[in-house]
């Protein structure tokens, strides 16, 4: 038998004490692992939200959001000011408009339904349907509402998901036009193409002009697939809104400069524009997750310290109990190092047994504890912001509670390494006491 074997055997000298210590350490290590699981899962979620947000500042005319509100469009002169600001790498401009049955032969792919009728009726205090905005079926004086087809003029046709207000974007056939194009071309949604029997190369009428379909996209949702995307210059010219911009996105060189760039854009445009950035909105949305991350980190550290203190006090108690035995062993030729290794082995045996129980607890409780923490925190948070942001972040907010924590091999490895660290830290004071025991003391006790 060597010092290590003796250390392992010594761990079982007092069965009740061993059982109690292992159980307590197991609970502590289990709690540590559950907190580690929560910390990692929440951290991954935060990273995924942050990476999906991007370094952009959104600019829209003051008081306007999509086709709601009021106010005046921005001008290209104002956007040119933004373009010159520090950290702004480029500005994507867009102009949204609605096609009417009088200037377009396109038929909407979306039926009005109850909601469409209600929105049409609620869109103004004394709403009178403009004759050109509706497909009319006049019989007995009633008007049938048909949702209009939205046309977006853009200088960034390669990133249509932004232009379409989010969602996944996939070009199913054809190509997009160039960003500086002023041709009478369009990329149209797949639903609209099907409804109007259009293919790449087909033409349709908009603003009483023939427009050629150069591409068809699938945005993954019915609303976006009922839209038309055209070059900005083309829409401005055909709709007689030369120089008008209804929304712009300033691209910033780094996420760390987004806040300062937002302030600079606000200063440059004054009260003419509503300026917001996605990062700030995302930070508000993920704030509860960051709280969980902090709580889980402190709980993890607290649990590790508690474990170390328990094993430390236990080992000190054991050393005091076996003071005479240590003296005898020293008297018959054992060095301090050998005795310390024996006691350290005993501490490691206890903590590794605790780690086995702790890993079991971590596997079982890791995910439920993570979900409990996330659910409690995200339920109390509110998703603020105007419609566009609700569209952009509503999904993220809803998916915050879908954080999933699991115990992988890395967590198990952390658990075992943590147990070893606890055992080593816990043995240090005991080792000091062992070194202080003088073999002569065993003679004095005789």
């Amino acid at each position, binding site marked *: *038998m*060597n010092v290590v074997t*003796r250390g392992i*055997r*010594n761990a079982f*000298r007092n069965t009740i004490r061993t059982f109690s210590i292992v159980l307590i350490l197991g609970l502590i290590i289990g709690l540590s692992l559950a907190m580690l699981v929560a910390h990692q899962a929440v951290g991954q979620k935060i990273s995924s939200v942050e990476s999906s947000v991007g370094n952009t500042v959104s600019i829209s005319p003051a008081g306007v959001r999509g086709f709601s509100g009021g106010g005046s469009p921005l001008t290209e002169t104002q956007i040119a000011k933004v373009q010159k600001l520090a950290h702004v790498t480029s500005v994507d401009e867009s102009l949204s408009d609605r096609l009417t049955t009088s200037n377009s032969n396109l038929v909407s792919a979306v039926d009005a339904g109850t909601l469409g009728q209600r929105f049409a009726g609620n869109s103004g205090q004394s709403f009178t349907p403009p004759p050109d905005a509706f497909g009319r079926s006049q019989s007995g004086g009633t008007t049938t509402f048909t949702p209009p087809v939205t046309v977006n003029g853009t200088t960034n046709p390669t990133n249509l998901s932004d232009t379409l207000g989010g969602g996944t974007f996939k070009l199913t056939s054809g190509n997009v036009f160039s960003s500086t194009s002023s041709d009478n071309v369009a990329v149209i949604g797949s639903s609209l193409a099907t409804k109007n029997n259009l293919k790449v190369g087909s033409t349709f009428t908009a603003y009483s002009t023939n427009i050629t379909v150069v591409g068809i996209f699938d945005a993954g949702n019915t609303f976006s697939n009922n839209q038309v995307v055209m070059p900005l210059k083309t829409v401005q010219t055909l709709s007689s809104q030369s120089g008008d911009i209804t929304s712009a996105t300033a691209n910033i060189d780094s996420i760390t400069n987004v806040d300062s760039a937002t302030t600079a854009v606000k200063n440059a445009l004054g009260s003419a524009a509503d300026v917001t950035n996605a990062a700030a909105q995302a930070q508000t949305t993920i704030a509860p997750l960051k709280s969980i991350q902090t709580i889980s980190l402190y709980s993890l550290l607290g649990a590790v310290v508690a474990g170390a203190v328990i094993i430390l006090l236990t080992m000190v108690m054991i050393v005091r109990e076996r003071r*005479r*035995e240590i003296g*005898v*062993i*020293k*008297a*018959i*030729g*054992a*060095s301090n190092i*050998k005795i310390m290794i024996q006691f350290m082995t005993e501490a490691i045996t206890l903590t590794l047994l605790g780690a086995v129980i702790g890993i079991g607890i971590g596997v079982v409780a890791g995910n439920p504890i993570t979900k409990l923490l996330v659910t409690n925190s995200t339920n109390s948070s509110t998703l603020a912001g105007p419609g566009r942001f609700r569209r952009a972040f509503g999904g993220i907010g809803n998916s915050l509670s879908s954080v999933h924590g699991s115990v992988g091999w890395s967590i198990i490895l952390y658990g075992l390494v943590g147990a070893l660290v606890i055992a080593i830290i816990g043995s240090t004071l005991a080792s000091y006491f062992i070194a202080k025991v*003088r*073999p*002569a003391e*065993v*003679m*004095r006790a*005789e």
Partner: protein
Amino acid sequence: MLQIKELKKVFKSGDTNVLAVDDVSFSVSDGQFASIIGKSGSGKSTLLSLLGALDKPTSGHIMVGDKDITKLHDRALIKYRGRKIGYVFQSYNLVPNLTALENVMLPMEFAKVPKKQRIERAGKLLDQVGLKDDKQKRKPGRLSGGEQQRVAIARALANKPQLILADEPTGNLDSQTGKMIFDLLHDLAKTENTTILTVTHDLSIAGKTDVTFILSDGKLVKR
């Protein structure tokens, strides 16, 4: 040959110095069985712990063979304790969760004796002290006081020491068992050619040793 020259040990007790061993000089020849007697507090156990290198003297010399152990450094002292000295304590001081055999093997493990030799020698020594077969596999708690002291004697002899120091080895035993243990120590000293120095209160036991020293207030008063 064990030679003690002008040995002193002073302990601090509060503000006062206590002279536990005061200028003690004597010698014991190889293979001799010597005893130290004296009243409680006379410095017997302190003297024994100095001879066993368990404590350091304030001044003086302890020569074991040609080596002065008072000049040894810590690492050399550990080696000296493990290989040259055997201890027998009044209350046996066996490791409670080790069997009798494992207890006897323990000093040999620290002296880096190969495992096979450890098992053989420990078994042989336990046979010699009268602990046979299944008793060798028992833990101290399942052995009588006399049997435990036999195991302690076997442990003391494990590394074939030059000197065995026994502190009241019969103090916790009834007179009959005490006599048996004394006879065992005496016989083993002869067969293993080991010097034995024992501290005792029992004058009848002291009377049977080759040489007896009387200690009073830390001083050697009679030989």
